[in-house]
């Protein structure tokens, strides 16, 4: 039953057109598609990275273009690793990373766990909770300074209202022992939603039938939480911790605008130190060395962590 339309319309690809159809070879296309990205990254990431490595062995200062650049060998590295202040900054960073992650994970997981009940309107409220993480840490961090003002700030007022402590005693940004918490609070406020989302993804990845299985296996709610919910969401929680860990290790904008590292040097995290050395003191070579050290540190820690994560995932 060969009818004519079929013949006309659907004839084999006509010979002269065959060449047209051939197009670019797969290999050519692969490189065409990939190379712009690779080139861009080479230009904007890799080349500068190698330049920074080179600079880290010199005394180059970007604000002294006319000076002779001397090769210092490893002395920049020695100076950094022997500098008390740098170690204090690293400690401050670790402290900040630890507490923000702890709080964000605890609160974020709890929120996710509650949202997973799927109460009426949960989608709307979830979206609302997400809003802080969409915002610019710099712009919002700056505004938090206003909220923290001891005499006029809303935060101090509310805390004072609730606790009865006079607002002038709630000097979040001035008090040496409160200032670190002021950045922890803002970071937690901003990024708990992020951890919550990843945890939510983790909880949602647990199929309901697993709970049904546990139900028929006669597991109590408590046992279900500890034996099913938590271990199955663990890879996600660990992932959230990884992401937040890397981000907070790099943290600059929010801290810079909130406390600027003060009072004294109590909130001076590594990025702030680096910024001061690189763009205020203009010790370019020295700060390049510091940058490389930071990079290696994050990279190393992240790698170790990812290995642990993969182990958890492959159980």
């Amino acid at each position, binding site marked *: 039953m060969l009818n004519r339309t079929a013949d006309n319309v659907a004839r084999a690809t006509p010979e002269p057109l065959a060449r047209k159809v051939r197009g670019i070879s797969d290999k050519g296309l692969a490189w065409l598609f990939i190379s712009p990205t690779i080139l861009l990254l080479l230009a904007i990431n890799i080349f500068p990275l190698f330049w920074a490595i080179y600079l880290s062995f010199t005394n180059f200062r970007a604000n002294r273009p006319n000076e002779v650049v001397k090769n210092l060998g490893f002395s920049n590295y020695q100076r950094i690793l022997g500098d008390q202040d740098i170690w204090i900054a690293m400690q401050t960073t670790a402290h900040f990373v630890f507490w923000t992650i702890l709080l964000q994970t605890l609160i974020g997981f709890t929120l996710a766990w509650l949202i997973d009940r799927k109460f009426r309107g949960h989608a709307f409220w979830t979206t609302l909770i997400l809003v802080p993480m969409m915002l610019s840490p710099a712009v919002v961090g700056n505004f938090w300074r206003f909220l923290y003002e001891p005499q006029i700030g809303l935060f101090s007022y509310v805390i004072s209202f609730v606790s009865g402590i006079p607002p002038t005693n709630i000097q979040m940004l001035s008090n040496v022992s409160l200032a670190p918490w002021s950045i922890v609070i803002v970071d937690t406020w901003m990024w708990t939603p992020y951890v919550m989302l990843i945890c939510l993804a983790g909880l949602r990845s647990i*199929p309901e039938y697993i709970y*049904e*299985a546990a*139900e028929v*296996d006669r597991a109590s709610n408590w046992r279900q939480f500890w034996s099913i919910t938590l271990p199955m969401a663990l890879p996600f929680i660990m992932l959230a911790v990884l992401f937040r860990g890397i981000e907070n290790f790099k943290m600059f904008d929010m801290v810079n605008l909130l406390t600027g590292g003060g009072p004294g040097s109590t909130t001076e995290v590594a990025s702030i130190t680096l910024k001061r050395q690189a763009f205020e003191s203009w010790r370019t070579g020295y700060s390049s060395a510091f940058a490389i050290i930071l990079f290696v540190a994050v990279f190393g820690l992240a790698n170790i962590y990812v290995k642990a994560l993969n182990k958890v995932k492959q159980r």
Partner: protein
Amino acid sequence: MAEIRVQHLRKAFGDFVAVQDSNFVVEDGEFFVMLGPSGCGKTTTLRMIAGLELPTGGQILLGGDDVTMLRARERDIAFVFQLFALYPHMNVRKNIGFPLLAQGMPSAEIRTRVEETAKLLRIDHLLDKSVSGLAGGDRQRVALGRAIVRRPKCFLMDEPLGTLDTEFRDLMVHELRELHNRIRATTVYVTHDQMEAMSMADKIAVMNHGVIEQFGTPREIYDRPATMYVAEFIGSPPMNFLKFGGGLAKGASEILVQGAKVAVPEVREDIAPADMALGIRPEHIRFDDASKLRGSIYGTEYLGTTQIVAVETADGIIKARVPAEIRLNAGDHVGLALNSARLSLFDKGSGRAVKTAIHDTASERRAQHG
């Protein structure tokens, strides 16, 4: 082990009635299969028996106890899920041991029980493997292990072979049935695959739209389908229907189909004139040039020992299963001889089977209609 008694069970989700007034009894040690297409209410029924779903009405008795409104964990049942529902973060040993752990059994005892169970299922060599790396059949065995390790009152299985490859499925069907023969646990098994049901069940309930259409042994259901629906659902190819008209009188044993007289099992009830259907299984058709019931060959499907022959008659295509040696060509005219003793008669309107002599032998084991 215990008997399961379901009475007037009903489940509605809003306006949608998933299960309507179901009644059946699964006797102690019986392998009971609920068969039907997806959405027929079989899984919902199973989940209500398990306590994963609470019924809208009716009663469920487990070993004589009313468990209707108890949660799953308060009933002593085991459930095998379609997707196995293994705990992916635990190894085989922990998966099987989990129900015992949840019960608070000491770990030494758990260990011995798990190992016993694993040996029974021949997966003892896999105990310390991660479940994610297991092949489908082994996962299935682990799921079974988790179910039997606790020695519950009954097993409930929700299409447990649905995700396995066809080749493997046949193997598992036999294995499951063998396992049942060994431990003789009351089992309720849900499937949409009639082959599984026929191979394993002691009793089958065929469900459709929340209603049990027929309840009985596999042979009853195959040989004496209670409705046209059941007749069509079971069998491959399914039962052929030829329409005929007019009423039937009690005692009649002949009908007129397409102008041909066809002998049928003696009718046991009076039927007012209506559209009727004659049901013939493909294997009950022979080619006989003498027959007045005629048609032409539409196509054949060669199956080796047998072949399926599609015959175009005045009333549509009829499929016959005949030995493969018979050579037929498309377009050949043939006469169809029917095995009178095995024919079913249906009221086309209601789909209900007409009571005839084929029902005699089994009248006391009559299926309950829902």
